[in-house]
């Protein structure tokens, strides 16, 4: 069922051009940004439980400097869409995204945020089938829900996307990051 949703309004993504255009400076800024991605305190469904687990003692996203969950979108860099986006929630999500200041990144966490997941069936009427219909998504983390290691790997992928290199060693089979 790939019909276009006419009642969904996409986020405005226009950005001011950067003030400084020296490549070295920009690279430096990008590395610093990737090392302190502050996520938003924003959970929609069960994937948010995994997002909370990733901040706790066993997985500890703080090791990579991303544990500062800011309550205000003005101070966030990363929006983790953790869960099912209903059509009622879509305008709020778009508004939150638009309120974030410029270098901003979106992670779609879990199958619901990627494509609607288990709610993707004929004649469903209440669910947005993929958050990329609303906001541009940087990294998709599949799973239902993804394990906390998956979220960490998604964070590394965003860091890789920002700086052009992977910073942390690849995990061995069956080993935690």
């Amino acid at each position, binding site marked *: 069922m790939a019909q276009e949703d006419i009642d969904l309004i996409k986020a405005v993504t226009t*950005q*001011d051009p950067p003030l400084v255009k020296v490549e070295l400076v920009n690279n*430096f*800024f990008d*590395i*610093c*940004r990737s*090392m*302190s991605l502050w996520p938003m*305190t924003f959970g929609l469904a069960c994937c948010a439980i995994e997002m909370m687990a990733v901040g*706790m*003692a066993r997985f*500890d996203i*703080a*090791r*990579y*400097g991303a*544990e*500062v969950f*800011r*309550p*205000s979108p*003005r*101070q966030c*860099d990363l929006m983790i869409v953790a869960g099912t986006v209903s059509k009622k929630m879509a305008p709020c999500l778009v508004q939150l995204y638009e*309120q974030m*200041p*410029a*270098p901003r990144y979106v992670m779609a966490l879990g199958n619901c945020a990627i494509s609607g997941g288990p709610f993707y069936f004929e004649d469903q009427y209440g669910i947005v089938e993929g958050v990329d219909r609303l906001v541009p998504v940087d990294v998709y983390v599949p799973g239902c829900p993804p394990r906390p290691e998956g979220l960490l790997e998604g964070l590394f992928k965003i860091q890789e996307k920002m700086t052009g290199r992977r*910073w*942390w060693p690849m995990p061995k089979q069956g080993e935690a990051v």
Partner: protein
Amino acid sequence: MNIPPELIHISIALAAIAAFIGLNGLVLVYLERKVAGFIQRRPGPYEVGPWGLLQPVADAVKLVGKQLVRPKVADPWLYWAAPLLSFTPIFLLFLVIPFGPTLTGMEFNYGLLLILAFTGLNVLALCLAGWSSANKYSLLGAARSVAQSIAYEIPLLLAVLAIAFQFGTLNLTEMVHQQGQWPWQWNIMFQPLAFVIYFLCAIAETNRAPFDLPEAESELTAGFHTEYSGMAFGLFFLAEYAYIIVVSCVAVVLFLGGWQGPGAPGFWWFLLKVYALILVIIWIRWTYPRVRFDQLLNINWKWLLPLALVNLLLTLIFVKI
């Protein structure tokens, strides 16, 4: 050209203070996150630089590189003035603090009075920030901040007044000179109640948990700095940490013997005591849950204020005898 030596002295002191504030901001961000991690059995920042030492640098650079947003309906002048107003008085506060026997920005007979007067400016800045943001959460946060700061300033001033009567001076250097080298000669032995009152009020004045109601994220998003992004938010953050250092410095001067210490007195004792106090403040933040607003005001008006009055009375009787 005839430049008075006082002026050169103060200029050098201001430059040193600026460096000190910036460095301390970095150290305290790292310390806070690391201590939070250890208290919750996590390693805390670990991978960015050795043991995560470069973490605060990355945060600072990121905040500088972030877009500055002003809401359309916000008052442009007041909105940008608020973070500056919160940050600039700090230089004056550090100017009179005696770090060592001769390590003072400015010898001033009314040093304590100056510190108490200019810490009050922070409330005004938070109030302006909340009002000019044109955001309901900011405004509520600002209102709470004003109520809390004004309430807690009274027992704080009464506790400090008792100390001033006891020493008979407002000069901070002179106060340290009146205390001895050994811990039992420090003022905390004679004024334990005043120290407890001062410490509680200082935590409340700097909006630290468990008294961080102006920025309670479960109710008020982020309180007065909800609308601030990038370095404007960074300035509020830096100011908060600087005020924590200031209240710790004053506590050390008034109660813990300043730079006096067993063995060799010097600024190292002063810094050691200040950082010990800051660690206690961080420890309290990550241990206790936030109080409700009625509890917050009840603690102040029903306990701290009467206790501070009793303490003042007792001190006056002892001074008279």
